[in-house]
């Protein structure tokens, strides 16, 4: 079990990491999600021992790793640019960690075959790495990381450099490989769908701080923070006043189970339903065909909302819609 306690790293005057606490249980896959520069890569490098800490401790099974250099931590690291050794073949790259462990030749051969089979690169042993495609290089990097069977795998945007189709394909594949091999992993990404697809638990980071942690379902059901809501693609933040089961957001009232008082509210994307008999009216500002439906953006008062619709709208059209009762969520900064 990995435990990070109050990890802090200061670059010049700013906190790259600001008192981050994070636990990864054995067999768990935790995704760290956040925009670029939020400190997620620094967190990963700090766990690996590649980035010295200013404050805080990293422990594994209760043992403080402060004086354990990176090569003795037994962690694997998959770099965003793969960092494949250009002078070694696919086999040489995958074999590297096994050789460092002093594994016997027979064991190395078996292990190389196993991991290359696992990542779908059977028979690639002697290929020079610079001749491989981006997707193939990614698989070699994954195989190289898996080969020494590290107790924790750290992945830094491992598919960020690939195009979208390949990314979706590899996300599913990696999830399957992780499940089969049974790894414990800390996975850094800026992509929400990728994080949700791959991880048991998602931790959201912003400006060096860990803002929220939970299962994808928990996060979706209750983002709690404005920042998390925005990362998840929720609608705009609205100021509202709740009184006796009704939330007043200025231009309409929605039934709610939130307690009375002033709130910052967000509307989940699925809560808005376009319907001719809807009680609310907006003006269409954009309409695009996407995956069999129309993605419509429209404005009401001074906020812009979005919803899907089966019929097409023109810009400037009037649009009628419902907001599902009890759907508004309260967030704070």
């Amino acid at each position: 079990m990995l435990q990070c306690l109050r990890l802090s790293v200061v670059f010049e005057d700013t906190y790259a990491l600001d008192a981050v606490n994070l636990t990864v249980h054995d067999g768990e896959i935790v995704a760290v999600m956040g925009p670029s520069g939020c400190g997620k890569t620094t967190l990963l490098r700090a766990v690996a021992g590649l980035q010295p800490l200013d404050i805080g401790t990293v422990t594994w099974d209760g043992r403080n790793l402060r004086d354990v250099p990176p090569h003795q931590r037994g962690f694997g690291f998959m770099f965003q640019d793969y960092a494949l050794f250009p002078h070694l073949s696919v086999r040489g790259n995958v074999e590297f960690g096994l050789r460092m462990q002093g594994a016997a030749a027979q064991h190395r051969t078996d292990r190389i075959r196993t991991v290359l089979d696992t990542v779908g690169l059977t028979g690639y042993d002697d290929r020079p790495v610079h001749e491989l495609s981006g997707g193939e290089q990614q698989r070699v990097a994954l195989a190289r990381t898996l080969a020494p069977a590290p107790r924790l795998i750290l992945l830094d945007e491992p598919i960020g450099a690939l195009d979208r189709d390949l990314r979706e394909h590899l996300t599913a594949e990696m999830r399957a490989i992780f499940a089969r091999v049974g790894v414990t992993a800390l996975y850094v990404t800026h992509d929400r769908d990728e994080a949700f697809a791959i991880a048991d638990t998602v931790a959201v980071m912003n400006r060096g701080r860990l803002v929220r942690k939970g299962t994808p379902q928990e996060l979706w059901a209750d983002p709690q923070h404005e920042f998390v809501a925005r990362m998840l693609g929720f609608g705009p933040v609205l100021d509202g006043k709740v009184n006796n089961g009704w939330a007043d957001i200025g231009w309409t009232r929605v039934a709610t189970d939130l307690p009375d008082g002033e709130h910052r509210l967000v509307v989940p994307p699925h809560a808005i339903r376009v319907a001719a008999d809807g009680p609310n009216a907006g003006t269409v500002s954009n309409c695009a065909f996407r995956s069999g439906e129309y993605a419509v953006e429209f404005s009401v008062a001074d906020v812009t909302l979005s919803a899907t619709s089966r019929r097409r709208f023109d810009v400037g059209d009037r649009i009628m819609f419902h907001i599902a009762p009890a759907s508004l969520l309260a967030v704070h900064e």
Partner: protein
Amino acid sequence: MDGHPSLSRAGGIALVVVPLAFLAYFFLYPLLTVLVTGFTSDGRLDLGPIQTVLGRSALLNVAWFTLWQAVASTLLTVLLALPAANVMARYEFPGKSFVRAAIVVPFVLPTVVVGSAFLALLGPDGPLGIDLRQTIWAILIAHVFFNYSIVVRTVSAYWERIDPALGEAAQMLGAGRMSVFLRVTLPMLRPAIASAASLVFLFTFTSFGIILILGGLSHATIEVEIWRQATGLINFEVAAALAFLQIVGISVTLFLYSRYQERKTVQFGHRRSARPIGQMSRGQRWHVLGNLLVMLLLLGTPLFVLIDRSLRGGSGYSFDAYSGLGEQVAGLAAPATTAIWNSARFALVATVLAVAIGLAAATVIAYRRGWLARSFDALLMLPLGTSAVTLGFGFLLALDAPLDLRTSIWIIPIAHAMVAIPFVVRTAVPVMRSVRHRLREAAAMLGAPPERVWQEIDLPLVARAGLIGAGFAFAVSLGEFGATSFLALPSNPTLPTAIFRLLGRPGTESFTNAMALSTLLMIGTTVTILLIERLRRDGLGDF
């Protein structure tokens, strides 16, 4: 990048001290002695020699000729090489990698060989039937031949990285082809052109062997005049004053070169794919074909004629010149085989010295930060900018005490090593720096302790750079003529000095013998360089 973790303290000191001591004794000390000789007499400051040089119109003419022929050679080379650089950067055709390797050959050929080849081509018995010997034309053409590949390679490597979309964008904004070239392409290429041109200028400014062989008595660069004053007229003070003038000229050029070199490291992105034959318009095909033809004529003909002449003695074709290498021939104090043996062993020793010292220095430059690395870098560029003739002259003046090395034949490989060290450093430093720190981190994360990281990651990559540096050093030593012309005794010649002696003698037999030795020397350097090219292309550019 961080400093390299596994350099121990004692090792680190040795890496600084050994190259520094070698450089001090075999470069700075001789050079200073030359300057002191030029500025003092009997231990007192004496501006006499400098005044002599500046006051004598014959010597001023030498300086003027040196300057304008260098400018003319540079302009001509750039003009001819630019279209070829475009072909190499933008078009794909069968045999391109061969062409890329082959065009380097002239640049690494010893000047004596180039001189011989153009004597054969432009002499009275040449295939053209016109005698251009001792004219400026012979010199200019030989200089273009020699430096063409520097411009083609430097500029095309840069051109490849300029996104063609930039030109297309300009076209879509209404620029015609000519204005795309003048307003987009040329300004972007300028650093590369300027950097290549200053190198060409430097080489032609200090041209020695080619001028000596092709220019005859009527044309002399400062370099040739230093040699003449020192060895022919035994006028050391004037020679030293000339050397000083030359150093000033070189320093200015090198300063400009290094400024452009810095700017050249701006990256424009990845290499773009070149246009294959199938997608070329008719005009583009002629452009490619035409430039390949120019390369063939310019670069191929002289070498072909050289080989041809080596096989033609007095009557018809024969191998006489080659089979007689072991015999005593007129004009040489020792059989030609002695020269071959000398060149081979000197090259071997020079290579070992240059690689050992060059790699040590490169390690400091690549892995250390701050003033030490920077001043080391600058210091090691100096031999590149100092003419070989000045170096040889300096050895002659300086190395008589405390132990007289001038009579030892080992002075020759030491001089060669001094000339070759900058090449080794230039090859090794970029490779050492290109070992990304990320790779070391990756190795550490796979369980490699620091000493294993050095052994597994740095060493294999650096070893290859060392091998390439060794190849360069070997080729440089084989062909070195400027310094050797001061140091090699007639009884113990190297190939270049033997060839020069033979060329200075009248008669067909000596000429044919010179052509045969030049051919052998050409083969030796070419094979070395092609081996290096192979190593270089095996992925070395990719990390």
